[in-house]
């Protein structure tokens, strides 16, 4: 009898938790769908955007194809091109974001609509980001496939998958928090595009979309490892390609994850207090 009651309690508890999880999944699904629909409302726009990113990938591959022409080691070439393909593809998973809209919403005051929703602000945008990442990734995979065919690259198979995925998750979160921070500038200023423009340029080079960062002079490389940039997609890519890193590098990935998280939380709180409806 007593045991039965306890069981009942357990079942109720479990049911509640399941329901909660289910609603989370459902919200996630709906947000994903809405985001996809938003994209498809402007599909020509989106396709052209993908065309642009593909052109950029082609240019880099052509550049290195010519650059490595006289390199004797076939293996080096294979590793190099595998790196580029992996890094660029993973970069869409890491960088794809919708948080860029937030600054405008803060400036116009429209952010109130999101704040009034009975869902955590961060979760709301994280789900949207996930949708964005999925859409972009599916196209990026196709483009990567095309690039493999055009350049006749033999892709190396991924290794150290568990560690790679964990570090990739770190990269995604670091990117998410930095992107949020860049939008939160909107709480204090209307000029939000500038820092984002700089960030964009920094990321494209310092995170390793154009070349593996270890090509850099040793000292620059080491200094770079202290910044958050290599942890976005350079490190996960290298891990997937089987490279080993000293423990402190892995540790730094977690360090940046927590640091950006804490800063974002803090700035969010400060910003909300400072929020005074710039909008007219």
């Amino acid at each position: 009898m007593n045991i039965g009651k306890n069981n009942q309690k357990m079942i109720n508890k479990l049911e509640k938790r399941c329901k909660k999880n289910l609603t989370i999944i459902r919200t996630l699904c709906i947000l994903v769908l809405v985001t996809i629909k938003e994209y498809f409302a402007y599909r020509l726009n989106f396709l052209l955007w993908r065309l642009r990113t593909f052109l950029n990938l082609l240019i880099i591959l052509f550049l290195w194809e010519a650059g490595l022409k006289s390199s004797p080691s076939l293996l080096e070439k294979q590793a190099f091109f595998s790196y580029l393909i992996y890094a660029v593809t993973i970069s869409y998973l890491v960088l794809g974001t919708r948080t860029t809209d937030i600054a405008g919403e803060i400036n116009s005051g429209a952010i109130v609509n999101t704040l009034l929703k009975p869902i955590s602000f961060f979760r709301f945008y994280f789900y949207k980001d996930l949708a964005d990442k999925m859409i972009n990734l599916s196209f990026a995979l196709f483009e990567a496939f095309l690039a493999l065919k055009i350049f006749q690259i033999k892709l190396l198979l991924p290794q150290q998958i568990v560690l790679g995925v964990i570090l990739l998750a770190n990269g995604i979160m670091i990117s998410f928090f930095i992107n949020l921070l860049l939008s939160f500038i909107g709480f204090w200023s209307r000029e939000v595009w500038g820092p984002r423009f700089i960030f964009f340029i920094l990321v494209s080079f310092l995170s390793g979309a154009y070349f593996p960062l270890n090509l850099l002079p040793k000292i620059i490389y080491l200094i770079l490892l202290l910044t958050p940039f290599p942890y976005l997609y350079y490190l996960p890519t290298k891990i997937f390609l089987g490279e080993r890193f000293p423990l402190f590098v892995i540790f730094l990935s977690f360090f940046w994850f927590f640091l950006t998280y804490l800063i974002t939380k803090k700035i969010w709180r400060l910003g909300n207090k400072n929020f005074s409806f710039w909008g007219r």
Partner: protein
Amino acid sequence: MKKIYHNLKIFFLFSRYSLRSTLDHRAGVFFFLFGKILRFSFFFFLIFLVFSKNQLLNGYNFTQAIIVFLTFNLIDTATQMVFREVYRFRPLVVSGEFDFILLKPYPVLLRLLFGGFDFLDLVVLFPLCFLFFYFLFQLPSINLFSLIAFFFLLINAFLISTSFHIIVLAMGILFTTVDHAIMIYRDITSFGRFPFDIYRKSLRDFLTFIIPVGVMFSFPPKALFGLLSFQNTIIAFLISLISLFLSLKIWQFALKKYQVGGN
């Protein structure tokens, strides 16, 4: 003559106001310049890095590759400086302010192309020129003829760029859902950042004769290195004339198709 003077006067007024609006946003000035310099140095470094693996890049040596890169930046910056207003065109159409421009008694197309002279690009242009001349004198052999050909091909590139920008404007009217037509142009032209010979022949031909990016960016340095045939030089000028003519036709077509701004 009087008309040209009148239009010039308006152009200077627009430029002055554009400068004052720019200076109103000081943080913007800093980020813009800083970002440009950053991107320039990064690509400069990338070329350096590629050459650290190699002495020649499909026949180009380091100095030549840098001159190609600098030529690209010169044309890219100069055209941005002159055609900055094109970057602001889509918001004008979407908000309906384009209507007001259509109502003004001045040449509409000129206003849309040249109405927003960008002084920040002018600031970037000076050190670029300096660098260009520095590397130019590193070349072992330059003769007067190739210099003159280079100069005219630069002007030719500017004409081709003008027609690209006109087409971007026309797209702004015809395809209102596309919000980055100008960036598509920028990405296509970025093929010109590196020596054209690193691309496959079919792509090269496509980018020379169909979308004349190659004529814009690869012909001038080739002429400088004495690698461009006389025949190709003539073709370059023909291509720019044809593209200018076509773009004007497209623009007139777009104006007739213009429906309602706003809403």
